[in-house]
């Protein structure tokens, strides 16, 4: 017998748990927050279930964190759970962004504020560059992968090749080059 899951949470508790992450997760790294809350803290999922959810979330379109929230919420309380989880994760940040957006609109012509925002924007570029280099470390060191990295970059950044073209013309080539070996692997 599998151990009985600790009492099935309702939509409002699911919302609360995800909203806590939605409020506190300054600086990103949401998947780690989700793991801590769902696996370690609430024990709503075991490690394996969480990794399976993450795998689905990473494979399908959409943000990994939101996709994991949808899957976890669904497992816990069906459609209402999925909505509660995603809303909890997303809404607090949106409210804060709205405040920031209103302040931005009001003060962006102030030279001091404009200077500070330029600094923040530059730092955000540095952050994205670091994330890209970090998760791409393996791809930069493999010659064939590097060709796809640089080819995609060149076509999209300099020739504005659209995302659908990349995904439906270039991606299939990359995927076929990585196709599964048809024969059974040798022992």
């Amino acid at each position, binding site marked *: 017998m599998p151990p009985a899951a600790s009492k099935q949470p309702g939509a409002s508790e699911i919302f609360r748990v995800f909203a806590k992450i939605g409020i506190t997760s300054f600086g990103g790294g949401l998947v780690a927050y989700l793991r801590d809350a769902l696996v370690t803290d609430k024990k709503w999922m075991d490690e394996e279930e969480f990794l399976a959810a993450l795998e689905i979330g990473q494979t399908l379109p959409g*943000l990994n964190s939101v996709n994991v929230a949808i*899957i976890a919420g669904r497992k816990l309380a069906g459609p209402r759970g999925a909505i509660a989880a995603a809303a909890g994760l997303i809404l607090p940040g949106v409210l804060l*962004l709205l405040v920031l957006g209103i302040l931005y609109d009001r003060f962006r012509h102030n030279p001091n504020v404009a200077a500070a925002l330029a600094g923040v924007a530059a730092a955000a*570029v540095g952050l994205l560059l670091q994330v890209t280099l970090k998760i791409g470390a393996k791809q930069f060191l493999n010659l064939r992968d590097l060709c796809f990295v640089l080819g995609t*970059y060149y076509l999209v950044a300099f020739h504005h090749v659209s995302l659908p073209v990349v995904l439906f013309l270039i991606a299939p080539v990359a995927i076929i080059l990585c196709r*599964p070996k048809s024969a059974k692997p040798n022992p």
Partner: protein
Amino acid sequence: MSDLVKILNVFCLLSLLAVGGGSAVLPQMEHETVTLHHWVTGDQFATIYSLGQMAPGPNMSMVALIGWQAAGAAGLLIALVAFYLPSSFLTYGCSYIWDHFKDNPWRASVQRGMAPITIGLMLAGVHAVGKTACINPSHSTHFNTITCITALAVTGILFAKRINPALLMLLGGVAGWFLLRAN
């Protein structure tokens, strides 16, 4: 009215094309919202993107601010729903039938093949925000030097030390406040 429909179309499409996480759609989003539809300027896009990185929660919720700049409160709501709902529906549906695909050998091929493309798209995303935030021909050399140094310093610090990126962005703001004011 027609702007709301356009917002809906653009962000629904971006939602379904956002493979490998949100940052991969950044170049396409910049192209659609700045160049094609003029909802925001390049500067606004870079700033809104950076605000989105500072705020808690999923880092692409900044689409709400683009919708807001384009068409007010209705635009905000539509951009947010359009960007999150389609991919969420897909995930919801697919999580039921996932077990059928789990052991399909092509799944690993897709992941393996997509990885470098996602990285290339993210680099193009760096380019899309960097061309206004860091290397901007309409700004002075002084400005561009400071912003480039700020960006590279953030990259370097994050490689050297585990530190909350939101904190570094605030520091970037402080640096900008002191160093970029004269312009």
